[in-house]
């Protein structure tokens, strides 16, 4: 593939989600389109190619812009749909 042979970052070229987790308490996410669902137990994000769902307890969004966002709380599960 062109992207692989040129060693280009996939998140830029293919619009893949970037998820950066620190332990199970903090997550930084980039390259998303928006929030589909937000409750204290689940956060469902719409990416360009798919969706990702964070499950856990007492989930809060520390900040939310169109570039990136930060979620903190006790995360128990990350699922790609």
């Amino acid at each position: 593939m062109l992207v692989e042979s040129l060693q280009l970052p996939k998140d830029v070229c293919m619009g893949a989600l970037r998820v950066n987790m620190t332990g199970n308490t903090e997550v930084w996410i980039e390259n998303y389109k928006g929030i589909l669902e937000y409750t204290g137990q689940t956060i469902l994000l719409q990416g360009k190619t798919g969706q990702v769902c964070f499950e856990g307890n007492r989930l809060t969004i520390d900040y939310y812009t169109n570039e990136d966002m930060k979620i903190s709380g006790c995360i128990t599960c990350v699922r790609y749909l």
Partner: protein
Amino acid sequence: MIKFLKYLKGYVRIKVWGFSPERFMNLCSNKNILLWDIVKEGDVYYMSISLKAFYQLRPIVKKTGTKVVILKRYGLPFFVPVMLSRKVFVLGLLACITFWMWSSLFIWDIELSGNYQITDDVFMSFLKESDIKAGMLKNELDLVTLEKEIRRYFPEVTWTSAKLDGTKLQIDIKENDAPIITASVEEEGGRDLVANYDGTITSMIVRTGVPTVSIGDTVENGTILVEGKIPIYNEDATVREYQYVAADADIYMEHMISYEDKLPFDYIQKDYTGRTKTRYFIRFGNNELKIESGTPFLVYDCIIKEYKPALFEKLSIPVFWGSYTYREYMNVEYVYSLEQARQILEEKISEFETSLEEKGVQIIEKDVKMDSGGGNWIVSGEFSIIEQIGLNKDTVVEEILDTGENEADE
């Protein structure tokens, strides 16, 4: 830093609920509106939004069918109008700041250090004369002139440093350790060196003058030891004239001095009963505020401890607090035993001996006896000592009668 900027620009905590709050958030992010601290409780979302962005919310709210309510306002844009409406408070704050700034223009305390010979009182009266006092304006004080003035007024001061530390004037001085040598005045006429004790001369070194005694001579008090007139002879061995000088010599004499000391049989000592009482006070300047007044015991002594609160150390506000500790005692009469008396008197004698030795006196012999009489222990004795002697006395000017004759011969 970011928090401070947010505070400066102002932000609000809002409550969002309604048809689709998620869409509300997505639209916000699309419009580059930052949301933070988003928390969901039940059906309601709480979040923070900057004040500027809050005014752009109206179309979003309409589009998403949500409701927004402000819960709390944070930041300077909200704080300033509140402050402006509280005029008296702001005025007071300003007045307070002005007062602090104004009062820091003055000197409130003067501290002196490094003085040993010059007492604080003498120095303070000097400062008073030069119009330097606590409460004067800092501008009126010229530190360089003050330093010069101190050195001029006190010749023994070799180094001075005056500096301002906050509202405190700190003066550091160094005194000359060596004695000040004053130029000896050339005197008219000669001076003799005269014995001031009866005794035997043990050593003599004459620098100026004519010695009239020699080593081993026994002299009486008042005898001239070195004469201050040097005879100049004619060819025929008669005295032509006298040159008058100040006699100068190191003469050591062995002589006796007597010593006597008394110690009464009984003495009074404070016997503390062990009962103490502490009372606290606060002092403003000279006004003392005691928590309890009156004296608790009939016979007592008192220890006063006084502290300055650490807060006022730099500010020099005369506020002190401390305690009086009263200790009851009884005057009890005791009698010295022979052993105690002997010990005390021996200590006194040895003190006397050290004081002699400090003066450069050499003790040759001592003969001390202890006795009692008249309700006292009496110690008496004689010390045979060698010490430097000599008193200056004006030389008697002698007229030379045959001068006229000599001149006539020529």
